[in-house]
């Protein structure tokens, strides 16, 4: 074996915490093992909810990593509210656990010699993907929900492919380490550990992985304290995040997130995604001259707002659930999309393409699948909570469909093009 370079021993001796060891690592690891699959699955469901079969999930071209496409259901209406709320909230809540887990294994980074065998070298490479992957996903996700696109690349591309790199490394890590995790958890009963005081806290016996310090100092925190500190951090983040998915006064508890704030009082005073000013929709486009164009079966017709208001009106309490994880339930009133489809002469459409007055922007059009047009609560909403939609919420008319991601609930609708079953 080559001689250790100077400093290696010093680093090795400088790991003093008597808490580091297989048991604590396994406790943090178990929490991640249980929760991360939920984050991964809800993230992938977000991709499916966009409708990859209509080429409207980003990134559009994913090669072998295409997910099985299915029509995203409209029921339960809170489906996307829960899946995407879970993705973002759980992703945030797990941050202290990730940091605690990394703290517990950090000495391994300075392992000497750095490479003992091919197996170890390859495994260390997958660990780079694992750690890089989770930190990358957390960083891009956090920046995205706070509207700081400082990274300068496309969020969707990065977060989608980053998810696959992470997931591959995560699966490999779990397969390799699972037996160790089980042994470590069995080595000391959880309950007894949590009852052990700081004074009685002793280092674990030396382990084959070298997590236990060679010269541990006295404990300044018990294992209960270490678990509690990470759990407390997770709880703190949960309390400050969950509000963006709640309605009523509790919404304000999301103190540090954009969606804990209400943009104003009144029936239209709920969070806006993309203001009318940002969308570049001008007042003269939405005034008395506004017309809704319906297309179907080769025919075109236009309706003005009073013609729409003269049609059968339906009210539904539906959540608007943003891909960024926040959501809010409001009472929307308007014309059923299936009534408009019938008006256009396509009572059983295969899909419908909705276009906005907006000229630029990724979401100025969206395709709805057949089930999303035909749901009895799927609306072209004209009013919300008993009043006309405000300009920021899509006046003169917007789409609202149960369980549809908010970005596809097109605002300032200009046109709906219904495709028949045989149109191809």
């Amino acid at each position, binding site marked *: 074996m080559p001689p250790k370079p100077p400093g290696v021993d010093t680093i090795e001796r400088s790991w003093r915490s008597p808490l580091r060891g297989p048991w604590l690592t396994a406790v943090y690891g178990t929490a991640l093992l249980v929760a991360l699959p939920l984050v991964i699955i809800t993230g992938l469901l977000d991709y499916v909810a966009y409708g990859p079969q209509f080429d409207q999930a980003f990134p559009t071209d994913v*090669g*072998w*990593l295409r997910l099985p496409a299915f029509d995203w259901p409209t029921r339960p209406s809170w489906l996307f509210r829960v899946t995407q709320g879970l993705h973002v909230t759980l992703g945030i809540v797990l*941050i*202290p656990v990730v940091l605690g887990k*990394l*703290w517990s294994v950090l000495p391994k*980074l300075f392992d000497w010699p750095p490479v003992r*065998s091919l*197996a170890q070298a390859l495994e260390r*490479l*997958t660990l780079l*993907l694992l*750690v*890089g992957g989770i930190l*990358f996903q957390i*960083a*891009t996700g*956090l*920046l995205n929900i*706070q*509207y*700081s*696109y*400082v*990274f*300068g*690349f*496309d969020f969707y*591309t*990065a977060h989608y492919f*980053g998810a*696959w*790199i992470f997931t591959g*490394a995560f*699966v*490999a890590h779990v*397969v*390799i380490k699972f037996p160790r995790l089980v042994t470590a958890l069995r080595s000391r009963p959880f309950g007894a550990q949590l009852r052990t005081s700081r004074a009685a806290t002793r280092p674990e016996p030396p382990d084959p992985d070298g997590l236990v310090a060679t010269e541990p100092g006295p404990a*300044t*925190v018990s294992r209960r*304290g270490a678990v509690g*500190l990470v759990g*407390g*951090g997770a709880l*703190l*983040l949960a309390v*400050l995040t969950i509000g963006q998915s709640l309605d009523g006064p509790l919404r304000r508890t999301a*103190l*540090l*997130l*954009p969606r804990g*704030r209400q*943009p104003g009082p009144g029936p239209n005073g709920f*969070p*806006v995604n*993309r*203001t009318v000013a*940002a969308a570049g929709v001008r007042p003269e486009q939405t005034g008395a001259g506004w017309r809704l164009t319906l297309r179907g079966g080769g025919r075109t017709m236009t309706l003005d707002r009073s013609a729409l208001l003269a049609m059968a009106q339906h009210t539904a309490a539906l959540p608007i659930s943003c891909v960024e994880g926040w959501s809010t339930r409001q009472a929307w009133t308007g014309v059923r999309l299936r009534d408009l489809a019938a008006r256009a002469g396509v009572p059983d459409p295969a899909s419908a393409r909705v276009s906005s007055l907006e000229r630029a922007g990724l979401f100025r059009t969206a395709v709805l699948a057949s089930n999303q047009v035909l749901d009895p609560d799927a609306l072209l909403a004209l009013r919300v909570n008993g009043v006309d939609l405000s300009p*920021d919420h899509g006046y003169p008319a917007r789409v609202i469909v149960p369980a549809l991601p908010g970005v596809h609930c097109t605002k300032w609708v200009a046109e709906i093009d219904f495709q028949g079953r045989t149109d191809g």
Partner: protein
Amino acid sequence: MAERAARLRARYGAAPWHLVVVTAALVLAGWVALRLAHEATAGRMLLWFLGAVIAHDLVLFPVYAAVDRGLRALARGRVTLLNHLRAPALGSALLFLVFSPGILRLGETTHLAATGQDQRPYLMRWLLLSAALFLLSAVTYLLRRRQASPKRSDSA
């Protein structure tokens, strides 16, 4: 057969299934990397991916370890006091880490376009939350000390 497996094990350093598992993860990542290589921003993505590891392992960790050493020096062996400093400091730092984009106002125009609001309130809210954490910790510390020390009225 068994002998060949044993030879592989000796030369490779682990069981054959280990090779299968790590290779699968590396091939997947390699395939993604090749796919992304033609993107104009591929370099930035790689930079953020590796940068995140470096930022955690070689910046964040040394910084919080150094701060902890500072707190230990400050507490001079009074472990309960140390922990009542550590807990709120960690809480405050965690909030800063997670919510720094808003606190530092790193997206004023996109935030305004998306929500119709500015990012001004977050800094003060973070400071107040941090103050609340330290205050809460200080109060519980004092209560614990009073419970631990023999009551004055008894000795009078």
